[in-house]
């Protein structure tokens, strides 16, 4: 009743090719954006902004990157952590070598450098597929972390091999890194970047490049036969995916924690991001966000829940229960909808079209 496309006629090509073709969807999206940009910073505490929403956004960006590679182009990768580390260290080297560079430039350049590294490690994908490729990308994960740990040049020869972000501002006094950055500034800065890249990704996957990726994913031999160049298509996917992961890593190191050691991007991070896109839904922009929400927010919720309802359980038991419930929920959601939360969302919308009078 409320959500239906009947009566909405598209009279221009532009309207027909819009990202969101249904009016209600557009309204919903604008409302969401307004809520995220205007309402959340007003009503949220520093704890929510700086500890829950910030990592959620940054990891969602990484998940977006991986989803391009795995969800759209079909190349299973476990090198995300390594690429995030590349972004973080590249940003650090750029920011310390050229202190006058603007933070957005630093972050974009770090992303581009990571894209280069991603291309390099994407080359084996031309021969290796599926789980073999996943495990093979672990080589890049372990190698990159080892490299940043080993060579002092990357950390400007700090004794412990830890990098820390210099204070940088977007304009004037609006610091987004360093101790005097407010949680609101960090949140808004990250949110803007994430929204921008989500939009860019959405458009990219609707373009001819995106269609090539999907053709390769669905059957690469068939794609090759109809004239899609395997080499450039796969490497483009690696490049763009690493670009986003690199930016996400730079944001993590600069905006979220401020100081990181390479181990912050160890193999567990790669797994974490992969879990996000599987739970969220492969090959879906929305899925990256839903998956990140599930993986980041749910454990925090579970570990806080006993306190909220006033139960006094020892912390170790809470942790164990958190693990068990989390595991069970993963299995539960997979059984309910193996194609991820994004698919559930889609089903909901389809149901809503007929509501309240389904035939």
């Amino acid at each position, binding site marked *: 009743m409320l959500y239906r496309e009947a009566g909405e006629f598209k009279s221009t090509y532009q309207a027909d090719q819009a990202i969101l073709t249904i009016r209600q969807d557009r309204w919903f999206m604008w409302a969401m954006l307004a809520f995220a940009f205007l309402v959340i910073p007003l009503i949220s505490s520093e704890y929510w902004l700086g500890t829950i929403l910030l990592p959620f956004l940054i990891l969602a960006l990484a998940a977006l990157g991986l989803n391009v590679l795995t969800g759209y182009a079909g190349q299973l990768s476990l090198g995300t952590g390594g690429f995030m580390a590349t972004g973080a260290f590249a940003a650090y080297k750029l920011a310390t070598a050229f202190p006058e560079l603007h933070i957005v430039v630093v972050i974009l350049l770090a992303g581009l450098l990571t894209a280069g590294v991603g291309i390099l490690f994407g080359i084996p994908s031309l021969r290796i597929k599926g789980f073999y490729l996943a*495990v093979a990308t672990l080589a890049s994960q*372990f190698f990159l972390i080892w490299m940043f740990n080993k060579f002092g040049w990357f950390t400007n020869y700090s004794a412990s091999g830890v990098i820390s972000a210099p204070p940088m501002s977007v304009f004037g006094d609006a610091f987004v890194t360093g101790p005097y950055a407010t949680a609101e500034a960090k949140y808004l800065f990250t949110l803007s970047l994430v929204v921008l890249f989500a939009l860019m990704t959405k458009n990219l996957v609707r373009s001819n490049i995106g269609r090539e990726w999907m053709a390769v994913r669905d059957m690469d031999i068939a794609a090759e036969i109809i004239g899609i160049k395997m080499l450039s298509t796969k490497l483009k996917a690696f490049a763009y995916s690493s670009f986003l992961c690199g930016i996400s890593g730079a944001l993590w190191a600069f905006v979220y924690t401020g100081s990181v050691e390479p181990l912050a991007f160890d193999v567990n991070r790669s797994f974490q991001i992969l879990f996000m896109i*599987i739970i969220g839904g*492969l090959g879906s922009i929305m899925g990256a966000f839903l998956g990140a929400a599930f993986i980041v927010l749910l454990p925090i919720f579970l570990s806080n829940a006993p306190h909220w309802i006033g139960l006094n359980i020892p912390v170790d038991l809470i942790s164990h229960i958190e693990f068990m419930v989390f595991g069970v929920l993963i*299995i539960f959601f997979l059984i309910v909808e193996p194609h991820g939360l994004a698919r559930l969302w889609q089903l909901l919308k389809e149901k809503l079209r007929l509501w309240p009078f389904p035939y």
Partner: protein
Amino acid sequence: MRIERDVIYIIIVTLFLMVAIPWTMGQISEDIFFEWPFFFEVAIGGLLAGVMYSLVALGFVLIFKASGVFNFAQGAMVLFSALTLVGLNELGMPIWLAIIATLVVMLLLAVVIERVVLRSLVNQEHIILFMATIGITYFLDGFGQTLWGSEVKTLNLGIPSDPGFYFDGKILINDFDLVAALLAGVLVIVLALFFQYTRIGRALRAVADDHQAALSVGIPLKHIWVIVWAVAGIVALVAGIMWGSKLGVQFSLALIALKALPVLILGGFTSVPGAIVGGLIIGAGEKLAEVFIAPLIGGGIEDWFAYMLALAFLVFRPQGLFGEKIIERV
């Protein structure tokens, strides 16, 4: 089993490089110390460590072969079985009874996993099943620690860990590693015989070949899955006992799964002998690299070297050394 000719070539070239590279490095660099007895010590130590990796990799292979599931939970199963064994032992059960009880627990676990997870997700894509095993991992990690606590526990098999000298005292081999490798070897032979000569083993191979065909000749798929997960549980228990008596039974045991992954891709996900040969190559390769190459670039390369080594093999054999050939049709 017929071994393809190029696999033999690859193995011969590998063996040659494993000797030639350390020797060359020893000649050209002063930082690297090369002597034949020392080389053999490192190589043998690596091979024995490799057998321990194979032990973990075997569990992965069994399940992948029979059900196409990449079982991320194998590490958690190793931890869970070892925790259960030691926990029961501490409760006062004699060790043999505790082992039997743990086997029963692992069998129950297999039944539950089949009932709850596999049956509901039948016919789904590989990656979905993979994710489901991650759910199992979380659950087992939490469950095991809730039952038995997070403290470190000891598991003493009474195998001496003193250095043993062989070949006129020239070459040092650790007795513990030797015993562990022997046990692992026995397990592998038993498994191979089980697969080759028993009714269930034949059924397992049939299922691995073709689910549909196996079903149509009347092999009950559900039973097979329970059996294969139970067998993987047994393998996990053996791995848990061996690694647990080496490192102590604690949460870190779950991390050894990462050491098994390069073994898997090198040998091929679907091959039991692949897991063994892969383990030997990875074990020896990473140790030799750490000793004879690493000093030039700063050390600590073992981890990524194992993966790089596996990657190098994949470039020549994308399905792993002994994996089934990938045939693609449009």
